[in-house]
């Protein structure tokens, strides 16, 4: 499976680092509790932020003459080192305000030391540090590639935080949590990498506090340490450590390590003897340690623990996604050259492959020669009779990565024989560009001389097994094969739960023309114009579908009588009062649009059926236009009176008739071409165009619309198809 460079990198990086990443994450979660545990100790002075060195240093020095060093840790605990009155070494926490001793620092926990060593160096010293540093860098790249993948998935940076479409547990939470913990993980990886670079001296963190010029040291005028400017102006919170003078001698001095600089201070005069500002790299190192360990903030430490835990979940869910994706791969038993059935798949995350695989298996079991590949692998199929395209749409109506080459390949490889095709689009109505790429593929194929549509494009919302089953059953009927989809793909059973009574049937005036049939439902069935009536005239698997027009509370069908036609002969044989059994299949994608102000309805032949039902409803403030194609006036006469009536009541804004065998011999698309201003206006104003009739008519009209859309509206016809502004129900 071809996958995008970002997805490939994301996976490759994850595979190459997951073992060490697991180790670093587990130890990371544990280590996050170190600062939390430390901060519980009551060693921090409430006054800490308010104190200056002048409040602390002289006082402590007089209280504890043996003091040699004061240091302030990340918890803002003040630690004093020196000798006590007995001359013994002393290391205690002290209250900087009062000088009270608060407690002795505990020996560093052996457990945390052990975990820290494992986290930093895997107990392998320099080698281990290198691998951990590398892992950290890989995590940084994983975070970056993951961010790009989220942006692609959400179709743009600005939509980064919008809702995520749920496909399955692993995928959904991988993305949701990825977005939530993006910043802490990014910072963990970045600071980890930085600290490793600094550790290996690839980032220069060296600085030198210049030596004191002993000849220039002044021993006067003596000042009280409380009045040293540097002490008065330096808050305690700015301090890392203070080294006290080793003796009273003027040549011994204070050394202050601040957060941004270090300096020596004359202990007699308070003069600054030498000073160095840390390079930016040192300050960044301090920040990195703060951010990486959470040592300065318990809340951040908790957040880091959660983020580290999340990494473990990403490792699990990432592999779950990959395994699932791989399971959809197909190993072909036949070659492209010898196969009659070709399944072309376009999928970004692999879910469409599972549908393709199901059809592939079914056809194979029936002894058909099937070949499945990606849309990008389109080639010559010398023996093909059927092509099935199953494709998802990625990002902003774009092709999935493994389908991006399809248009070029299609143009470059014309097929040598006529092939029937069928396009199945997979998508979600949660995205505005629903199945846009599938529509594009369908439109592209319809323009090829060698390609004949077998059934019209079908779209599957949110992997609906019912919708897929519907397509499979229609396709199988037309292709003359049987597909017995397993229950998890949920094909509708061939049941006839609905009963109807025939209330009207017209008699043919012209042989082999169309007739109208009215059925009264024998129950409160819920249905609308555009739904389908399924019947099984042979009491077997053979299903016939008819478009329903809901007229005066009854089901009205328009049927063309075919000689030997299973369905049409059965229905024509019915008499008023007869009962029939069937099933109403909801077909919501071809219901009359509720919101559109302008609707153009286009039909040829018996495709007028659903529209007759739609215009039977009150127009309200909507404008409805009807374009119909018939062979001749006689074929139209069946519907003429009801259409005239709707025109008179204003229920129908306009009506145009194209006759293909009479007069100027026009097709319905010619009428649309003449009225192109109206068509463009309707599309521009979010109106809807509905097509019902033959696939040939659909092909012609879509081609015409594509021209209008690209030249006048600047968008492809697939844009309007995917946005529900061009609805189609053709056969």
């Amino acid at each position, binding site marked *: 499976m071809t996958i995008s460079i970002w997805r490939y990198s994301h996976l490759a990086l994850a595979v190459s680092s997951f073992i060490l990443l697991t180790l670093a994450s587990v130890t990371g979660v544990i280590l996050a509790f170190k600062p939390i545990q430390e901060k519980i100790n009551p060693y921090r002075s409430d006054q800490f932020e308010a104190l200056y060195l002048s409040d602390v240093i002289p006082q402590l020095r007089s209280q504890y003459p*043996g003091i*040699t*060093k004061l240091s302030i840790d990340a918890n803002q605990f003040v630690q004093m*080192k*020196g*000798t006590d009155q007995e*001359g*013994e*070494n002393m*290391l205690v926490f002290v209250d900087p305000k009062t000088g009270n001793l608060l407690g002795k620092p505990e*020996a*560093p926990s052996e457990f945390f*030391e052990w975990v820290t*060593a494992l986290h930093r160096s895997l107990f392998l*010293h*320099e080698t281990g540090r290198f691998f951990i540093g590398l892992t950290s860098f890989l995590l940084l790249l994983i975070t970056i590639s993951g961010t790009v993948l989220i942006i692609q998935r959400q179709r743009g940076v600005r939509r980064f935080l919008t809702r995520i479409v749920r496909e399955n547990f692993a995928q959904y939470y991988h993305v949701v949590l990825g977005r939530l913990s993006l910043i802490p993980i990014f910072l963990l990886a970045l600071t980890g990498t930085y600290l490793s670079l600094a550790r290996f*001296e690839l980032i220069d*963190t*060296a600085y*030198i*506090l210049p030596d004191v010029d002993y000849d220039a040291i002044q021993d006067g005028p003596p000042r009280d340490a409380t009045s040293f400017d540097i002490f008065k102006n330096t808050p305690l919170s700015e301090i890392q450590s203070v*080294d006290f003078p*080793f*003796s009273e001698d003027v040549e011994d001095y204070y*050394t202050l390590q601040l957060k941004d600089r270090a300096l020596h201070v004359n202990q007699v005069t308070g003069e600054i003897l030498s000073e160095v500002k840390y390079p930016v790299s040192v300050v960044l190192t301090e920040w990195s340690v703060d951010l990486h360990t959470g040592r300065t903030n318990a809340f951040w430490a908790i957040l880091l623990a959660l983020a580290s835990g999340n990494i473990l979940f990403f490792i699990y869910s990432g592999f779950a996604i990959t395994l699932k994706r791989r399971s959809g791969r197909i190993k072909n038993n036949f070659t492209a050259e010898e196969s009659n059935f070709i399944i072309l798949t376009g999928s970004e995350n692999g879910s469409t492959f599972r549908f393709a695989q199901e059809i592939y298996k079914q056809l194979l079991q029936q002894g058909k020669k099937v070949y499945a590949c990606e849309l990008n692998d389109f080639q010559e199929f010398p023996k093909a009779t059927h092509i099935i395209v199953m494709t998802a749409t990625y990002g902003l109506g774009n092709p999935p990565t493994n389908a991006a080459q399809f248009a070029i390949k299609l143009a470059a490889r014309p097929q040598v024989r006529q092939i029937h095709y069928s396009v199945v689009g997979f998508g979600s109505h949660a995205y505005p560009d629903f199945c846009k790429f599938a529509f594009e593929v369908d439109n592209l194929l319809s323009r090829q001389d060698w390609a004949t549509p077998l059934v019209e494009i079908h779209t599957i919302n949110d992997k609906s097994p019912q919708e897929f089953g519907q397509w499979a059953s229609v396709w199988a009927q037309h292709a003359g094969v049987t597909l017995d989809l397993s229950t998890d793909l949920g094909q509708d059973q061939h049941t006839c739960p609905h009963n109807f009574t025939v209330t009207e049937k017209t008699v043919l005036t012209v042989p082999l023309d169309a007739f109208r049939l009215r059925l009264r439902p024998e129950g409160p069935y819920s249905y609308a114009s555009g739904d389908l009536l399924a019947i099984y005239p042979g009491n077997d698997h053979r299903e016939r579908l008819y478009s329903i027009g809901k007229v005066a509370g009854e089901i009205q069908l328009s049927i063309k009588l075919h000689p030997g036609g299973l369905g049409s002969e059965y229905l024509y044989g019915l008499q008023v009062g007869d009962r029939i059994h069937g099933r109403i299949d909801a077909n919501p994608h071809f219901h009359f649009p509720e919101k559109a102000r302008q609707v153009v309805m286009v039909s040829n032949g018996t495709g007028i059926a659903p529209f007759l039902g739609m215009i039977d409803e009150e127009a309200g403030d909507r404008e409805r236009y009807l374009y119909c194609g018939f062979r001749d006036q006689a074929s139209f006469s069946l519907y003429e009176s009801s259409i005239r009536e709707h025109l008179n009541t204003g229920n129908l804004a306009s009506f145009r008739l194209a006759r293909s065998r009479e007069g100027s011999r026009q097709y319905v698309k010619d009428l649309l071409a003449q009225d192109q201003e109206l068509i463009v206006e309707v599309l521009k104003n979010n109106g809807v165009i509905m097509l019902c009739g033959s696939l040939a008519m659909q092909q012609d009209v879509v081609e015409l619309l594509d021209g209008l859309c690209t030249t006048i509206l600047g968008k492809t016809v697939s844009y309007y198809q995917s946005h529900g502004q061009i609805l189609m129900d053709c056969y």
Partner: protein
Amino acid sequence: MKASLIKTAWLLLAFILVTPTVMQAQKAPTSKYKCMIQMTNYLGEGAYIVISLINPKGAYEKTLYVLGPDKEWYNSLKEWHKFQAKKPTNISAITGASVTGGDRAVNVLEIESSKINSGYSLRFESAVEDKKYHMKDLEVPLTTEGLAAKSEGAGYIRYVRFSPN
């Protein structure tokens, strides 16, 4: 009976008289010195430094202070580690933090007074993770003069100073 009583009394008396001298022998008079180690501006991790008392024959006699808390690294102080492995003593009371480049450390050393001016010396042995090990970063003769002077180191230690505590 009487004889045994007298014997017991003698024994008791002997105990009373002898015990203090034994105790005195255990606690020889010591001197405390503040010892300041000033580090050079080397780059890298904190240095592990051990301060040992070296007898006139040049052999380790006693560990006086260890700068560096993590046992994991003690083997990098090779020579001392051999001594410590042969004659393990509890050093937890004389262990402190390691020192980084440019920093200084001040600690108190407790030295038996009798060892001063008797041919003994103080050895400062240093090691930094993945850098050179200095068995004699610095060796100061344990004399009155040696303890008063500022002694320069050869490795990570820039100099060492003492002051009586």
